[in-house]
């Protein structure tokens, strides 16, 4: 089954049915990754360009592996922001890439909205691999897949997202995704890290960590960027960690069957303690595994053929 859209730019514009289709396609692709020969010929002859303006080995590698397991050719282009400042506009870059006739451009950029702009300039598919503080749709999809696998459902669950909400594209995409699938989402962080009008995205807002933990079925911890101290968003790492870091003591207030997610890479001892990150409730490594499956599904549903082919009988 193909998505009825050229691009995957965000979760906000997806319908519930589309999200469910991507998740079920990803489930069927997990089987491929478990095989001895982890490759299917589905996207042979297709070219995927990974255009990363922001370094992220983890996400880029995940997209690259996903493309290769589908037999697509994957090309990585890392652009440091300094080398872009040579008078070439984003439009120029887009037109140059377009001239190489790729089937899909996966783009990561520190400026919000860049994938949207790029998609207007090129005729091939564009996948947003994270834009500024806006969206990170593949991350939200892999998070939803991970929760669905573990809990058997998303409908009716309570998700708490804790950390720097202002700067988090992961938070935004997950709010859209989880609420579309029927979950209740609460965001939590210091008031300096919760932007105005957050509740209009469909979530509740609290600054009280205890409240966010209590009753949550899923806790998603966000990575804190140390540089934010300079912007007076928090006074010190020590205080942040004491107030909003997840450790065993705070976890005592959680449900017995709570699960913990983190988009990675984690700052051990800052937003999450090592005991919790490596503990029984943590699904951090499952998230990574599911990342490949979800990205295979995304490529397949944007570039590929029918659902029958997805079964690879």
């Amino acid at each position: 089954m193909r998505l009825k859209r050229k691009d995957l730019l965000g979760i906000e514009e997806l319908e519930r049915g589309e999200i469910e289709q991507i998740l079920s396609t990803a489930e069927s692709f997990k089987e491929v990754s478990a095989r001895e020969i982890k490759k299917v010929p589905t996207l042979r002859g297709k070219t995927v360009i990974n255009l990363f303006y922001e370094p992220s080995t983890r996400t880029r590698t995940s997209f690259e592996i996903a493309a290769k397991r589908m037999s697509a050719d994957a090309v990585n282009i890392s652009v440091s922001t300094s080398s872009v400042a040579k008078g070439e506009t984003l439009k120029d870059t887009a037109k140059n890439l377009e001239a190489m006739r790729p089937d899909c451009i996966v783009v990561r950029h520190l400026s919000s909205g860049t994938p949207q702009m790029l998609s207007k300039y090129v005729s091939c598919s564009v996948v947003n691999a994270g834009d500024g503080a806006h969206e990170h749709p593949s991350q939200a999809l892999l998070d939803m897949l991970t929760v669905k696998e573990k809990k058997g459902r998303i409908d009716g669950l309570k998700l708490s997202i804790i950390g720097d909400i202002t700067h988090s594209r992961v938070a935004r995409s997950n709010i859209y995704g989880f609420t579309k699938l029927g979950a209740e989402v609460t965001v939590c962080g210091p008031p300096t890290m919760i932007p105005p009008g957050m509740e209009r995205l469909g979530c509740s807002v609290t600054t009280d960590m205890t409240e966010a933990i209590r009753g949550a079925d899923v806790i998603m911890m966000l990575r804190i960027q140390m540089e934010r101290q300079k912007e007076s968003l928090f006074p010190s790492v020590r205080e942040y960690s004491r107030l909003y870091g997840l450790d065993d003591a705070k976890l005592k207030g959680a449900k017995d069957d709570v699960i913990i997610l983190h988009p990675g890479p984690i700052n051990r001892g800052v937003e999450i303690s090592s005991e919790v990150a490596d503990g029984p409730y943590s699904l951090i490594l499952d998230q990574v595994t599911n990342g490949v499956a979800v990205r295979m599904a995304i490529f397949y549903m944007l570039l590929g053929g029918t659902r029958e082919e997805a079964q690879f009988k």
Partner: protein
Amino acid sequence: MNRLVIKGGRLIDPSVNVDGLFNIYIMGGRVGTIKPADRDTTELVEGAPGLEVIDATGLVVLPGFIDAHTHLREPGFEYKETIKTGTMAASSGGFTSVLCMANTNPVNDNASVTRYILDKAKAEGTASVHPIGAVTVGQQGERLTEFGELKAAGCVAFSDDGVPITDGAVMRRALEYSMIFGAPVVSHAEDPRLAGAGVMNEGAVSTRLGLKGIPNAAEDAMVARDLSLAELTGGRLHIAHVSTRGAVELIRSAKARGVNVTAEVTPHHLTLTDEAVSGYDTFTKMNPPLRAQEDVDALRGGLKDGTIDCIATDHAPQSTIEKDVEFDKAANGIVGLETAFSLAYGLVEERILTLNEIIRALTINPSKAFLLNKGSLRVGSQADIAIIDLNRTWKVDPSRLKSKSKNTPYGGRTLKGVVIKTVVNGSVVYDATKENS
């Protein structure tokens, strides 16, 4: 001596409470006589040498518009706009005078730059150009420029527009010192620290888009400071491009206390909200940013009750190099001269403002704020006139704009109110009927 007669049009001049059908006789660049059309028995010899007759039947005839806030970009940024193309844009928008900001390269902080601008305008311009000199040398916010020399060279006001004057003491001295010359200090009121790395209005929309926001407080705080300084010094303050409801309220109460302040609002802040940024169109990026509906409503109310005096464009041409880039990196500003009247007239059509209110804000009010002695059509006035068809619509086609830059968020929009002819100093400088369609 050349003569121009504008016959049968509806002359609206709020400065003298005129609204009716008149024939206007212009000689030597000045208004000679104005006669009621129905009682005018003057016999014109059609085809007489040096006589031009404009039949303005069905059209409105207005004092030419005065833009208190234009960036002509020359010298230094001729790839964005020149004095020639900028004044052509002005003419096609019904503007007969523009006040041009000092943030050129070199900065207009000394008389040689002022003279360069005026010489260029005289040689190539199709509108009167009134330069605004910088408040501080190089717009560095530290040392005052030589106001006396700049004024003598032709500057009508002082502003570091584009760069807020963060040092309150410098602003205080500027307001005091400019009193010698009776020239206003124009404040681009923004606390740069509060604005931070913001690229749009701070609110629910910036949160959704993941773009850094500029809170209203960045403007409110600076407007409050400047009003306090105007009150302290008695100096003449003009607040540029007011965008927040808080600033409107602050100016309203300052005016009630008798503070010597005037203010302007742009057509875009009157007609668009931050929702327009939703598609990450860099043509919706400007400073101050598009705000929320509550702000737009307050700005309209402020214009209506006289808190805000002028509609000024903040015409800010930017090339594709500055705009075809990531939203964060894109330069601020939009072109505005050619859409200003029609956008304002749209508010008249919506019954939010009256025709008189918008004409006042485009003519006599900016003239008074900047002591230009223009914006009025009386016997003896300089014949600066805009002739407009209020019943016709036009579709904004960016490629057809006279401005060298095409950065308008209104591309594709159909607007009502078409400028038919623009007259500067008694000469027709723009004629829509002679444009290729």
